[in-house]
């Protein structure tokens, strides 16, 4: 496995399956009374979050602590740019303290890649701008696999604001590596530039028609839509967005019985997903949250426990 986890491109099929398999064992640990394993004792991992995210940050923190690692949370907000300190200086100061790894969340695409060039420690991308969120894709795959079994040959729809979604980009790569077929659905204004050639070279489909796609899939992943996108002229009103692209109650009924529903959260109930759909038996949304810690424990194990994983 590669040293860092910056992108889903860093993991091949074998790597992904190893992480998901280990995550199953980690999930068992979560259900025990004593939730601690000694595996990463003596390792120090820093959560450097330049962008707020209570959910992801606490998920990584719990994952590290349940493996007996020392976990430090540093908020990068307001540190570098406002005080004139470059991002490079900011991360090098932290790693100079002798830590073993950085879990980075940043509002700028590519930040994790750049940081990995500047430091000697293991770097995990916990979300960089619009670019990727590898552990999210891994927990999405884990959750879907638990319910659907092997994802090879499965049909998955990803619906919503594709342009601004790092969850999309990581999932596209992850699902492709696992052999699933993806169709992305969005209004034209929410599809990234160049998606036609991108879809062609990566083998996924695009569609503006959610109703045509939904009955054909084994899993539908609804992406969060930000209401602020209205002011950018991406869509006229939330009402119109929901009618065209929301997982409404009617659309919930149009799904096949075995089709599962995912959402990376936080949800806009009533906007991109109806309350009924979020709470339906087919919904994996809470499973996704619970899987987050197990999957992150597995990632931490694979990147920090073995030989040569730390400088």
């Amino acid at each position: 496995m590669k040293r860092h986890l910056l992108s889903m491109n860093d993991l091949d099929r074998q790597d992904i399956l190893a992480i998901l398999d280990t995550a199953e064992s980690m999930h068992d640990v979560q259900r025990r009374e004593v939730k601690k394993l000694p595996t990463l004792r003596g390792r120090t991992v820093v959560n450097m979050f330049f962008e707020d995210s209570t959910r992801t940050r606490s998920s990584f923190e719990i994952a590290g602590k349940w493996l007996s690692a020392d976990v430090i949370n540093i908020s990068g907000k307001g540190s570098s740019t406002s005080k004139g300190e470059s991002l490079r200086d900011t991360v090098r100061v932290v790693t100079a303290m002798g830590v073993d790894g950085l879990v980075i969340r940043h509002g700028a695409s590519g930040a994790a890649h750049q940081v990995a060039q500047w430091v000697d420690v293991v770097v995990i991308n916990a979300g960089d701008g619009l670019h990727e969120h590898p552990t999210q894709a891994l927990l999405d795959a884990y959750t879907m696999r638990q319910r659907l079994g092997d994802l090879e040959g499965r049909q998955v729809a990803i619906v919503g604001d594709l342009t601004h979604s790092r969850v999309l980009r990581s999932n596209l790569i992850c699902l492709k590596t696992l052999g699933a077929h993806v169709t992305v659905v969005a209004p034209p204004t929410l599809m990234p530039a160049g998606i036609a050639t991108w879809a062609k070279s990566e083998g996924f489909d695009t569609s503006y028609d959610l109703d045509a796609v939904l009955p054909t899939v084994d899993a539908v992943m609804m992406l969060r839509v930000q209401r602020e996108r209205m002011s950018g002229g991406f869509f006229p009103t939330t009402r119109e967005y929901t009618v065209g692209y929301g997982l409404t109650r009617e659309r919930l009924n149009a799904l096949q019985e075995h089709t599962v529903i995912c959402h990376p959260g936080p949800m806009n109930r009533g906007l991109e997903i109806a309350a009924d759909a979020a709470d339906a038996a087919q919904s994996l949304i809470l499973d996704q949250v619970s899987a987050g810690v197990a999957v992150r424990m597995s990632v931490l194990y694979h990147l920090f426990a073995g030989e040569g994983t730390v400088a």
Partner: protein
Amino acid sequence: MSLLIKGADIAGAGRQDVLVRDGVVAEIGSLGGAGAARGTETIDADGLVVLPGLVDLHTHLREPGREDAETIASGSAAAAIGGYTAILAMANTTPVTDTAEAAERVLDLGRLAGLVDVQPVGAVTKGLVGEELAELGLMARSRAQVRVFSDDGRCVHDARVMRRALEYVKAFGGVVSQHAQDPKLADHHACCHEGELSGRLGLPGWPGVAEEVVIARDVMLARHTGSRVHIAHVSTAGSVEVIRWAKAQGIAVTAEVTPHHLMLTTDLLAGYDPTFKVNPPLRPGEDVEALRAALADGTIDAVATDHAPHARHDKEHAFVDAAFGVLGLETAFSVVSDVMVGSGLLDWAGVAQVMSMRPARIAGLSGHGRPIAVGEPANLTLVDPSATVTVDRDASKSLSRNNPWHGRRLTGMVHATLLRGRATVLKGALA
């Protein structure tokens, strides 16, 4: 003071000796041993080409305000190394060059450094805000004799303001140089050519059309007002089409292209390295091809470096947060030589046009870009067409290191630079 250049190829017109005396070209021909006496310095120019001194329409010298990134002195040194005898210093300093006093200050600092003629560019609008015209007339009348006006860094996006500026500068033969970037189509976050790569990388896209619509508007305004207009750093094939059409209509538009847009492409951004972050962004191969062809056929008049030095800490940020700009003064000639002459798109006479004569004419610099002839000011650049250089960013005279050429091998080097008969650079080093 005399200087004899022996056996140089005069801009591709043939091998001659050139005697320079008292700041002008005194004799051209086979001068034998005649000049060797009387303590005349001699440059053996066998295998070298002599061009009129290079003129850069577009440089950022950062002084006043960001002397940690560059000063007029260090920028002048870099320019001389690059074969330049005159450079136009853009107005987006701190404070902005939007008054006669500010322009004169830049002029004086340039004279103090004494390595290259530094001609200040005046802002089009006060503070570069884009709303009210700056004191264009006073800047024109000042000792700096400002003729080129630009809000570069920003686009003059208000059509009415642009129209007024185009009209106003007619009074003193001025020209507005437009940084074409519609702020609604490409805002200040936009940093990567909008296309498949920007989609994959999740970087805010900068679509070519944001440049093209502004050029289309401004050539029509120039026609309407009967003015000249100059387009800075043209970067797309679509822009070239608009300019070509406008020239065919007889519209007085001129255009420049940077060395980096002639050679580097958007895929260099795949690693998120801010070294390659520039505005307008690097474009795909199709645009690079169109720009080369346009420079060769005259649709684009000149090469201008848009030399944009930045302190290390301003580049060592996440890509979207890093400063825009690349260095260019020291490498411009080598890039043009490598890309345009090496491929046969331009000959040396063509290089003389795009890097000296036309920029001098656009800027109204009467002492530069002159033909190499007896009686003309001896602003000359001696180049070695076959020398190869592997660019070393740490060898630069600039105070900054944001060099996108580091490690590249280029064919063609500046050997010597003469400013009014005085060698500022000899054998590739400051004299």
